């Protein structure tokens, strides 16, 4: 059954005020770094970038409900904030975007955010939409068979919901009650294609019923609501009760990637409305309303983030690209290497 959680739930659940501020700090760092990456693209330094601007609240809240020491994260290209929430340093992020030698995910073999994380079990094998869902079922199956206490969180967009792989994975996860959370960041667009051309229903979460597990739709700019929904989903998975589909309604504040121009397909009204739902703004307001931060503290959070981003940029900008030699490392036994 799909259920819509409260629009702006402000009961903190298990989230203390202190943690809320920490999450906000991560969101702000993510935002400034994300903006920097776009700037680096415009300067011709970053070949391509997909932004998480608008998805920050959902991503920090999602990660907060999980256990990075145990759990698995199968992301796609838009989990910029989730990466930071999981402890990826700004320098590490930038090495990915600037294709530098030290890119921790793939040594710049792949696009930013693709490859495998050096410290948590987070990975993203390809750019191919929805392939991670059957893989996530496999990861979770392996844990279940060995009785491991681990949850698999798999991230996907509204666009990915149309792919056959998504159906096949959810169906299997339902049959075997796998410890997996399907985390759908629904920003209403697959590049330019709006929801109305992607599906004839209101919510993606409603499809969970057809797979025998719960689906829930949550406002993705509400840190507390997302955290609550994810906490329940993760608990369900850990208890062996099976999967949950958590759909978060977010906004994609920027075009699809640095290669895109969303004014080609979004109306000015749509863009204006969407900008109202900036999670940084909304979260800051909420924290101030609840007296968790002052205006001055907020400014400090921003200026610290900016400083951190500047340091990281200076460091990474001076670093070299990978040389030719390592291109031939880590091929499987079947590759014939230098041709």
């Amino acid at each position, binding site marked *: 059954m799909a259920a819509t959680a409260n629009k702006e739930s402000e009961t903190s659940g298990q989230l203390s005020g202190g943690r809320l501020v920490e999450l906000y700090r991560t969101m702000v760092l993510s935002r400034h770094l994300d903006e920097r990456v776009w700037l680096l693209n415009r300067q011709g330094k970053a070949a391509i970038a997909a932004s998480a601007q608008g998805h920050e609240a959902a991503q920090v809240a999602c990660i907060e409900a999980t256990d990075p020491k145990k759990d698995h994260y199968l992301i796609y290209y838009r989990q910029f904030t989730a990466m930071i929430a999981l402890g990826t340093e700004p320098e590490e992020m930038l090495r990915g975007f600037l294709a530098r030698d030290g890119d921790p995910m793939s040594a710049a073999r792949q696009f930013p955010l693709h490859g495998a994380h050096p410290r948590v079990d987070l990975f993203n094998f390809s750019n191919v939409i929805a392939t991670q869902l059957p893989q996530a079922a496999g990861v979770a199956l392996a844990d279940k068979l060995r009785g491991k206490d681990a949850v698999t969180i798999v991230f996907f967009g509204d666009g990915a919901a149309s792919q056959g792989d998504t159906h096949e994975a959810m169906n299997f996860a339902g049959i075997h009650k796998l410890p997996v959370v399907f985390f759908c960041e629904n920003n209403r667009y697959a590049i330019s294609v709006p929801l109305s051309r992607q599906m004839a229903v209101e919510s993606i979460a409603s499809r969970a019923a057809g797979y025998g597990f719960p689906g829930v739709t949550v406002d993705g700019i509400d840190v507390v609501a997302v955290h609550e929904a994810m906490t329940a989903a993760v608990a369900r998975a850990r208890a062996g009760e099976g999967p949950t589909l958590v759909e978060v309604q977010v906004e994609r504040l920027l075009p699809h990637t640095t290669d895109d121009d969303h004014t080609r*397909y979004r109306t000015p009204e749509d863009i204006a409305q969407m900008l109202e739902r900036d999670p940084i703004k909304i979260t800051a307001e909420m924290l101030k309303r609840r007296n968790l931060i002052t205006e001055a503290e907020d400014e400090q959070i921003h200026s610290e983030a900016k400083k951190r981003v500047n340091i990281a940029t200076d460091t990474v900008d001076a670093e070299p690209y990978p040389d030719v030699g390592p291109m031939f490392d880590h091929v499987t036994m079947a590759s014939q290497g*230098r041709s």
Partner: protein
Amino acid sequence: MPEMTVIEAVRETMRAEMRRDESIILMGEDVGNRGGVFLASDGFVDEFGEERVIDTPLAESLICGLALGAAVNGMRPVAEIQFADFVWPAINQIVGEAARVRYGTNGAKSAPMTIRIPYGGGVRGGLYHSQSIEVLFAHTPGLTVVAPATPYDAKGLLASAIRADDPVIVLEHKRTYRLIKGEVPDDDYTVPIGKAEIKRPGSDMTIVTYGLMLHYALQAAATAMELGIDVEVVDLRTLRPLDRETIIESVSRTGKVLIVQEDTPAVSISSEVAAIIGEHCFFDLDGPITRLGPPDIPPMPFSPIQEAAFMPSPEKIVSAIEKLAEL
């Protein structure tokens, strides 16, 4: 005669064909208001309407299955796969189904459908926006595969594809889209499917190639000429069926061959070209059948130095020409 880029030639050809024939419909991801990620259908939704320019959900198997169903029911769909790297989910509908409609129904049904696939590297696309995916299509009886390299051929072969009564895969090299310009006659013409073209005549050796590599080969041939080596360059243009006659005639005449391709050489177009030559030009060959391609590793690194090292280049082709000339 206007000068155009490859992507302009593609767009104008589709536009002209759609004006000519109402049964032509487009389908794919972002082909509507976005006009396609490469703007191949820029403005089409305004001219032809949402019914004929269909933004599909993100589902490649659907796109090709849909095109196939519409094709056997009177339409001439042109499906766009956004990037070649994402064609794999649709293989079942293309190779398993569309390719065999005519044969499997003993001629009762046919599927006049075109699948346009932007492919290839050298665009900082990394492992998943750089792939060459021609092998399986070129292998499969029932499919036709064209790979135009110039604006002129892009128009002529796309028109042939759209008008054909069986499924045709059109491989468009992404790097050529805006890089390569050329004259494109305004009038209605087609380039015949199954015909290679000697893009540069020469007497000392033959380069057989296609796609972006044609342009690199022509550059290399110009350099080689300065070194006194006169290279003939054959542009395959169609990858299935291969134009055996042109290949055999050229190589038999020059006596030496270098096959250049961007795709991984193992079990590929260059293998087949080599096999044809090894069978049919044996008595005229003056040297081994040589090939130039990328290394046998997954295509292709995102970082710029490695990407450049991966891709064949005019310089690498010149080296291979020199080596072959000495043999």
